């Protein structure tokens, strides 16, 4: 720091006074010097500040520049400040039964692909792959490896063992892509309901899974929704009941030499499908290809319970009787003229046996009299009959949540004449699926309110629009119970479960016209327990025939009924249904009270 200059230094002023000079000059001179000194100091400071500023700016621009160059040179990356709570592992939700047992889940496997240009020894690789995978051909592989392409798929998904074997080949050109595989651990169980899945768009490190049939296709969007990953789709099925049903049905089908079989077990209050089977079936883990020729109904993929529409015969008679009761035309003991044959428009309706000149409405059902049912249908009339069948859901596709439901569209005559009215009253001329029949029985017998079948679990009963009164519903149940105790379905008696039901043996239509003489569709539609209805079971057997008591038997009473009884015997305890051993007389209180 320079010394501050004094403006009037005493020594110089005294000296100037002695010489007679003006001391103010000295002061001015000193003032000027002081100003100069000040100015130099200010300039220095300003210069250093400017330099400082320049350094700061330089540093700032340098930082920006460096950051820009690192950004330009590095890989782009998403900011990870927000991290999702749960990483998505499986992309497709599980499907479980009503107790939470797994019906469909995912498993991580690998897809195998090749970079042919990275293969060290293509010939050895081709030989090794052909040894691991039976259906690959060594020569074809080698030809494809040398075709000049730089990428090719070998397999969509391979098992862990196969992955290890491919690893052991030690070939750097064989590469794996992670894959999720849809797994149905129970094999063919409930195969028609689950449907199946296949791969959609494929990339090296992922592939989408698409549902192709059944609930997999119906709920495809919901199953794929990442929000639902942890929430499994809960079906109304019961795995144990489904397994027991399929076992019994397969045994029955083999025993009765039937071409196919179907069964539907339904909770008649909630409309839940507890088990639904169609035989022959398939393994959804290796879904067979659809038939390219012939009748699709012969394919194992065909769901007879939902897609197959058949004339289900006498099982329809209870609808006619119930409607006649509902409209007040008859009561259960009204006598109906059953003299035959009944001729109508060049067509004659006759009975299996002659049941005498007249029978009560209950006996018409118990003996399954076509003539008696047709007479009741005449009283009702075609228009009202059609409306009643529509209210039971027999004229439209069922509302079940399966992609195949629209294929099961009922077939009925476009002109609903008097003859059609009479034949439809006993189940000929109107083709419906076994599921339709189960739904209609549920609506009629649950107290008379309409239900829509559902494959999803629900806890409350469906209280749909009323179809018949509770009294008519009880009367219908009593008639069905009488069919088992006194009529055509005597084999359906299962101790403790008061089974009621109606048999139906319908001749199968010949595609050339008319009906086959020796082929029937045997159906048994049942409700149990009849006094406190819980479940409806429909069993159909396609072309059964069995030699029993020295005769070839085809009718439902000998074929479908014993199978249905065995299903009830097995399934009812699994459903937690407690048997009630009531003596038959008191079990009939219901019918005697309503008569």
């Amino acid at each position, binding site marked *: 720091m320079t010394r501050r200059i004094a403006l009037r230094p005493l020594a110089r002023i005294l000296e100037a006074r002695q010489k007679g000079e003006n001391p103010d000059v000295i002061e001015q001179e000193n003032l000027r010097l002081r100003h100069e000194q000040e100015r130099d100091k200010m300039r220095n400071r300003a210069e250093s500040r400017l330099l400082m500023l320049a350094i700061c700016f330089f540093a700032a621009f340098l930082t920006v520049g460096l950051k820009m160059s690192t950004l330009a040179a590095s890989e782009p990356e998403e900011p*990870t400040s927000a*991290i999702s709570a749960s990483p998505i592992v499986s992309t497709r939700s599980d499907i479980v039964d009503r107790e939470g047992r797994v019906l469909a889940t995912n*498993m991580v496997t690998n897809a195998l692909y090749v970079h042919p240009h990275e293969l060290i020894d293509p010939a050895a690789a081709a030989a090794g792959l052909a040894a691991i995978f039976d259906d690959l051909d060594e020569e074809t592989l080698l030809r494809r490896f040398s075709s000049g392409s730089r990428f090719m798929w070998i397999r969509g998904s391979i098992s862990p063992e196969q992955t290890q074997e491919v690893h052991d080949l030690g070939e750097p050109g064989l590469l794996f892509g992670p894959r999720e595989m849809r797994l149905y*651990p129970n094999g063919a169980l409930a195969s028609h309901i689950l449907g199946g899945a296949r791969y959609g768009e494929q990339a090296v490190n992922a592939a989408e899974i698409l549902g192709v049939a059944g609930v997999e296709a119906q709920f495809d969007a919901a199953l794929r929704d990442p929000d639902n990953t942890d929430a499994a789709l809960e079906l109304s099925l019961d795995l144990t009941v489904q*397994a027991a049903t399929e076992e019994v049905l397969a045994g029955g089908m083999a025993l009765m030499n039937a071409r196919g079989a179907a069964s539907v077990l339904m909770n008649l209050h909630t409309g839940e499908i507890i088990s639904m089977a169609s035989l022959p079936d398939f393994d959804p883990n290796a879904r067979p290809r659809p038939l390219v020729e012939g009748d699709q109904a012969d394919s194992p993929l065909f769901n007879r319970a939902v897609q197959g529409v058949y004339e289900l015969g006498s099982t329809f008679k209870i609808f006619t009787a119930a409607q006649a009761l509902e409209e007040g035309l008859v009561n259960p003991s009204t006598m109906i003229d059953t003299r035959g044959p009944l001729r109508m428009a060049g067509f004659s309706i006759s009975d299996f046996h002659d049941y005498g000149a007249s029978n009560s409405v209950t006996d018409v059902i118990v003996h399954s009299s076509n003539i008696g049912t047709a007479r009741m249908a005449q009283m009702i009339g075609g228009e009202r009959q059609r409306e009643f069948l529509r209210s039971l859901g027999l004229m439209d596709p069922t509302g079940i949540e399966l992609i195949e439901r629209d294929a099961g569209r009922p077939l009925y005559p476009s002109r609903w004449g008097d003859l059609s009215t009479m034949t439809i009253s006993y189940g000929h001329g109107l083709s419906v699926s076994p599921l339709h029949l189960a739904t209609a029985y549920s609506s009629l017998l649950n107290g008379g309110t309409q239900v829509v079948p559902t494959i999803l679990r629900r806890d409350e009963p469906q209280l749909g629009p009323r179809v018949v009164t509770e009294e008519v519903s009880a009367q219908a149940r009593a008639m069905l119970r009488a069919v088992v105790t006194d009529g055509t379905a005597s084999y359906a008696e*299962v101790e403790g479960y008061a089974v009621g039901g109606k048999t139906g043996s319908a001749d199968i239509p010949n595609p050339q016209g008319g009906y086959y003489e020796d082929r029937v569709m045997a159906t048994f539609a049942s409700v149990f327990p009849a006094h406190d209805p819980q479940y409806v079971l429909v069993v159909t057997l396609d072309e059964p025939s069995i030699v029993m008591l020295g005769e070839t038997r085809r009718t439902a009473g000998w074929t479908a009924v014993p199978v249905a009884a065995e299903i009830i015997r097995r399934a009812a305890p699994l459903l937690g249904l407690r048997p009630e051993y009531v003596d038959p007389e008191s079990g009939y209180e219901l019918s005697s009270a309503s008569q």
Partner: protein
Amino acid sequence: MRGFLTFIAAIAVVALGYWAYHQNIQTQQAIREINRLQHAIGAERERLGVLRAEWAYLNRPDRLRELVELNFERLGLAPMVPAQFANIDEIIWRPETPIGQLEDIQFSASQPLPAPQEVSP
């Protein structure tokens, strides 16, 4: 005094710079840790899924049926039948339970349950 303030300010800048940098590093470490945990959770979930699938596969009705048949002599398992339902009074109690105490066990909610020491043998 001014020099001191400048000195304090410089120290503060250094300290804050250190703190900010430290926080930044800690955040990055936390994110890395979260990522690691997420991967671990993902791997565990995957394993859980495989185990669940395996459990379902081992419990498939076909296999259980086969096992029941194989072990029929030892276990004698048969399908459940309606006759297996029983009333509570048909249950044969353990022989060491004195008969007198059986009457103390009540199954109706309308009456208060006996005190535990009365029931336990």
